[in-house]
C-alpha cells in the first residue's frame, strides 16, 4: 500500500501550520480539541511558563483539583492578555478589590460568556475586558479562573482559549459521553499538537517512526533538535524523555543498525486515550484532506470505533431533537 510509506511531510504543508490549525472555529467537531501549538492552551503543570508576567499577582485564588488543567492554561493565556496592558511596577494603581467584588465579576463574566455562546457570537477576550471586567483588568486572571471553575462545575462547560493570536474563547461541552475521552485528552495531555503530529506519523507509517523521519516533520513546524523553542523548550528532551515517561510514546533503539538509530512507537497511554479516528480527523484538518485519503488507516479507525461502541453500549444513547446541540 503506497500510503503506508507516505511521509507526513507534505510539500504543501506550509510553514505557518501551527497558526493555520488555530483557525478552526469552535464549532468544528472535536475529534481533536482545538488546541494549538502554543503552550498557553495546553494544560500541564510542568509545561514551561509563557514568559515574564507583567501584571502583579494580586489575588492568589485556590485551585480545584479536578479542573487544575484548564484554569492553569487560562491563567497563562490571561497573563499574556493582561500583560499587554503593561503595567509598570511603579504604578500599582488602586488597592485590590474585596474578594466579594471579584466573585461578583466572575458571576457577571459567567453570564456574559453564556449569553454570547447562546447567541453563537465570538467570545473575544478584549470584549470581556471592555464589557465586563473593566477596571478590574489587573485581576482578570483570577476572575477568569473563577469563572471557568463555575462553568465547569455547574454547567459542565469548559471555557477554552481556542485561538491565542486572536484571543478568542469558546465554550466547549464536556459531557457528551462520546466526547469524554477527548476531554480527558485536552485536560491532561501535554503539548497536544506536537504529540499528535508524531503519533499520526507513526500511525500512517503503520510501524515505528525513525527519529530522523520525526525530525523531518517537526522541521516543517520550525522545530529542531538542537534549538530551544520559546514554547516547548528543549524539544528533543520533551519527545524522547517526557512523553516517554508519561507513556505517550515509546523510544527504542532500532535493532541491528549501526550507527545506533532510534524509533518512536505509540505508548500505552496514547493507545488508551486517543482513538484512531481522532488521528484521522487530526490528519484531515492539518492536511486539509478527507480522512479517506488514507484508506486503509481510515478503515482501521472505523473498525476500532465500532469495537469501542460495542464495548460500551451504555454510553451510546440516541437523542431527541430538542437536544440538538
Amino acid at each position, binding site marked *: 500500500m503506497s500510503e503506508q510509506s507516505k511521509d507526513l511531510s507534505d510539500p504543501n504543508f506550509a510553514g505557518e501550520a501551527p497558526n493555520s490549525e488555530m483557525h478552526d472555529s469552535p464549532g468544528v467537531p472535536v475529534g481533536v480539541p482545538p488546541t494549538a501549538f502554543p503552550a498557553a492552551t495546553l494544560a500541564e503543570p510542568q509545561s514551561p511558563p509563557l514568559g515574564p508576567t507583567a501584571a502583579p499577582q494580586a489575588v492568589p485564588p485556590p485551585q480545584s483539583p479536578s479542573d487544575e488543567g484548564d484554569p492553569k492554561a487560562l491563567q497563562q493565556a490571561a497573563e499574556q492578555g493582561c500583560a499587554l496592558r503593561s503595567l509598570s511596577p511603579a504604578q500599582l494603581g488602586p488597592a485590590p478589590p474585596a474578594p466579594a467584588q471579584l466573585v461578583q465579576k466572575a*458571576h457577571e463574566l459567567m*453570564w456574559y460568556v453564556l449569553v454570547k455562546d*447562546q*447567541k453563537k457570537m465570538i467570545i473575544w477576550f478584549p470584549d470581556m475586558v471592555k464589557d465586563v471586567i473593566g477596571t478590574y483588568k489587573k485581576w482578570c486572571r483570577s476572575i477568569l479562573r473563577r469563572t471557568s471553575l463555575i462553568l465547569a462545575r455547574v454547567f459542565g462547560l469548559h471555557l477554552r482559549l481556542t485561538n491565542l493570536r486572536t484571543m478568542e474563547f469558546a465554550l466547549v461541552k464536556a459531557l457528551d459521553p462520546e466526547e469524554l475521552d477527548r476531554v480527558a485528552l485536552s485536560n491532561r495531555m501535554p503539548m497536544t499538537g506536537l504529540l499528535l503530529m508524531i503519533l499520526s506519523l507513526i500511525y500512517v507509517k503503520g510501524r515505528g517512526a525513525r527519529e530522523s523521519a520525526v525530525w523531518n516533520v517537526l522541521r516543517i513546524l520550525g522545530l529542531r533538535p538542537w534549538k530551544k523553542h520559546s514554547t516547548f523548550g528543549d524539544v528533543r528532551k520533551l519527545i524522547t524523555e517526557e512523553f516517554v515517561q508519561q507513556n505517550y510514546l515509546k523510544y527504542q533503539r532500532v535493532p541491528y543498525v549501526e550507527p545506533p538509530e532510534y524509533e518512536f512507537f505509540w505508548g500505552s497511554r496514547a493507545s488508551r486515550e486517543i482513538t484512531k479516528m481522532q488521528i484521522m480527523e487530526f490528519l484531515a484538518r492539518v492536511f486539509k484532506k478527507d480522512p479517506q485519503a488514507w484508506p486503509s488507516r481510515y478503515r482501521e479507525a472505523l473498525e476500532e470505533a465500532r469495537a469501542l461502541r460495542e464495548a460500551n453500549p451504555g454510553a451510546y444513547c440516541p437523542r*431527541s431533537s*430538542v437536544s440538538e446541540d
Partner: protein
Amino acid sequence: MHSSTRKAAAIMTDVHRRFLQLLMTHGVLEEWEIKRLQKHCYKVHDCNATVEKLEDFINNINSVLESLYIEIKKGVTEDDGRPIYALVNLATTPISKMATDFAENELDLFRKALDLIMDSETGFASSTNILNLVDQLKGKKMRKKEAEQVLQKFAQNKWLIEKEGEFTLHGRAILEMEQYIRETYPDSVKICNICHSLLIQGQSCETCGIRMHLPCVAKYFKSNSEPRCPHCNDYWPHEIPEVFDPEKEREAGISKSNRRSLRSRQH
C-alpha cells in the same frame, strides 16, 4: 410562580449540567419541552435513574444557582396561560441579555417601546406610536423602515409579541425583566390581583379598576356562571377564557399555534 429555595444540599450531576446547557441554548422553553429535555438528560447521562419530579429537579438546580444570582424561572404566558421556563439572571441590568444581540439604537428602540407599553391601558403599544419616536433614539440615526425591521427582530427573538400591528411583551421578556420593570416603572407598573405578579396584558374591572391575567381569570372563574369582581363584587363584564390544558393541547396538535401570530413556538 417563583421557585422556592430548598436548603437541602443539592448535588450537581451531569444530568443537571446537561439540562442547564440545553436550557441556556434554547433560551426559553415551554413546559412540555422542558419535560422532554429533562427525560433526555437522564437518558444520556444516567439511563437507570428514575426521572425526578420536574419541580424538585428544578428546585435542586436552583439551590445551586442561588449563589450565582441566576435561576430557572417559571412563568406563564399572559395570553393563553402556557407555562414557560427560562434561565434568568437576577443580578445584572435588565437589557443585558439583549445587549449582545442589538446595537445601541436598537436597544433604545426597545426601551421606547417598553415605555409606551407600560404607559398604555391595554399593555399594547401601536407600531405607529413606537415608530414616531425614532428621532429620539440614542446612537446611530435610524429610519422608520429600519425600525420596523428591528421590531420584527424583537418579535422573532421572543422579546415582543406582535398582534394586529400592536406590540406587547413576550412572556420571556416578562420573565427576565420583571424585577427591572418593577424598579424602573414604579408608578405605572400593574399587578395581577390574583397572583400578584407583574401584569402587562389582562382584564380589568370597569368599576374598581383591579386587573387580572387572562389565565388567572380563567382559573378564578372556572365553571362560575356569574363571574364577579373579587374586589368590588360587581359583575365581571369580560369573556372568561378557558384554562390552559396541556393534554387538550397535544390532542389538538399543532394547529393551535396558527391561532395567533405568535412566533414563540418555533425553536
